[in-house]
């Protein structure tokens, strides 16, 4: 089993370097589009690490949800807004950057100390052939409540998004509608469903 273990080690090293590099890039790049694309790289590297941990379903779901949906939506938002603005360099900006670096470095040191000191119990059970069935069993037995709560949360956010997206603003006669209640946004009268 030496070759297999060697391949695993090399793959893990490559994936970790990619993951850490891409994550640093997300934070440090000044160009937000680069950050968004590198975020996709972070998610894909994480999917690779999941595969190394024999969690094939989780890794495919990671790619589907985070790369295919979340990252694409972030990119959409960035590209549709497309605001070109030159930021003025702040006076004493290095203080903020320096303190951020110190806080992040401290957190990193703390977490790595914890993870080195903790005696992790490593499972010796051979990996399951298919992880789909155990995941589904957990979803419908002991993790039923969190699962349903998450779906209700998603439903609520979806309804909210639809309401926000369906609102038609009237930007041209904003002054004429000042007699309205101050809490309601100026809207075009909506057609009733089914006309």
């Amino acid at each position, binding site marked *: *089993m*030496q*070759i*297999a273990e060697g391949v695993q080690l090399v793959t893990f090293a490559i994936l970790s370097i990619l993951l850490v590099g891409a994550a640093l890039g997300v934070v440090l790049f000044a160009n937000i*589009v680069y950050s968004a*694309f590198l975020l*996709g790289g972070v998610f*894909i590297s994480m999917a690779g690490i999941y595969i190394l941990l024999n969690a*094939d*379903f989780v890794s*495919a*779901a990671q*790619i*589907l949800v985070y*790369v*295919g*949906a979340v*990252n*694409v939506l972030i*990119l*959409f938002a960035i*590209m*549709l807004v497309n605001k070109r603005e030159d930021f003025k360099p702040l006076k004493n900006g290095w203080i903020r950057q320096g303190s951020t670096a110190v806080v992040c470095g401290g957190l990193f040191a703390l977490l790595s100390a914890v993870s080195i000191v903790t005696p992790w119990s490593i499972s010796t059970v051979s990996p399951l*052939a*298919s*992880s*789909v069935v155990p995941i589904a069993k957990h979803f419908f037995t002991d993790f039923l409540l969190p699962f349903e709560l998450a779906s209700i949360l998603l439903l609520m956010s979806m309804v909210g998004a639809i309401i926000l997206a369906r609102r038609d603003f009237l930007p041209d006669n904003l002054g004429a509608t000042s007699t309205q209640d101050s809490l309601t946004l100026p809207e075009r009268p909506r057609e009733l469903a089914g006309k």
Partner: protein
Amino acid sequence: MNSGIDLQGTFVQSLSDFGISTELAKILWMPFPMLLMLIGATVGVLVNVWLERKISAAVQQRIGPEFAGPLGVLQPVADGLKLVFKEDILPAKADPFLFTMGPILVVMPVFLSYLIVPFGQNLVITNINTGIFLWIALSSIVPIGLLMAGYASNNKYSLIGGLRAAAQSISYEIPLALSVLAIVLMSNSLSTIDIVEQQSGYGILSWNVWRQPIGFVIFWISALAECERLPFDLPEAEEELVAGYQTEYSGMKFALFYVGSYVNLVLSALMVAILYLGGWSSPIPIELLSNLAGVDPTSSWLQVVGASLGIAMTILKAYFLVFLAILTRWTVPRVRIDQLLNLGWKFLLPIALANLLITAALKLAFPTAFGG
């Protein structure tokens, strides 16, 4: 039952007999399927380009390519060579890194998806348990490449084309995944091998297309939209957007987009063949024929015949669907962007959901017919 031809097992066994360790033999085996996959996909593209030219010519009562090789079969090779020799142009003020990464990100997931396409019981590169789910996940990476290409080109047509492509592929992924889910419900597995096995009992009668007619239509429409084929080729609508996200591309980078779209078309056709048309199983089951002829089903020559018949059947079914797609392209006009999104969100999505619910209900009611 005998599992048929196992090329990898035979290869590893024969190398081990020479005194090479099993581990090393497995590693030595690995390049062969990868190379075969690349060559197969590329040849598939060449065939596809030739078919597209010939069928479009027939639809428009022309002759089509004729002089490059017999019946013009070398025309796609000539096209490819032309693209290889073209100058690689980088537009002014474009982002060079993202401009190069875009086409690569579009092509790689499509080629990777060939990992899970089975041509026989053991004629698949990897039989992983998340097979069909992996394909859906991989195909969701493509929009990022399209957005990248559209953004990096520094061209408004490219950007609009990239945004349209991403919007289109994320909207049609949902009905696609839901119709796949109905199939998965019936086969109790995500693996492509199991899905084909489940519909191989009674030849043509047991294909999923009879039990999932609505799912079949939804899947095919969504697959065409995912491949950006007409009537859904809005991202590159030439009358409105010049060529969409590929406007600024030339040479091999353009060729990557071109190859990617055709490989994706063949892949979608293969997926329809696997999910709905019985994959490698022939219309009349080969076991039945061998029983009638009184041939021992484990004899080696029958295994070889069966494997070649399986490959031929898969490719035949896939290219029949490619033929349908090409015919659609040259018959149907393009839809508008609002029609496209209405069709996806207001028509296909509810019907796909209803189809999934009906399949689940039928599975509970008739477990024998709908995979209990």
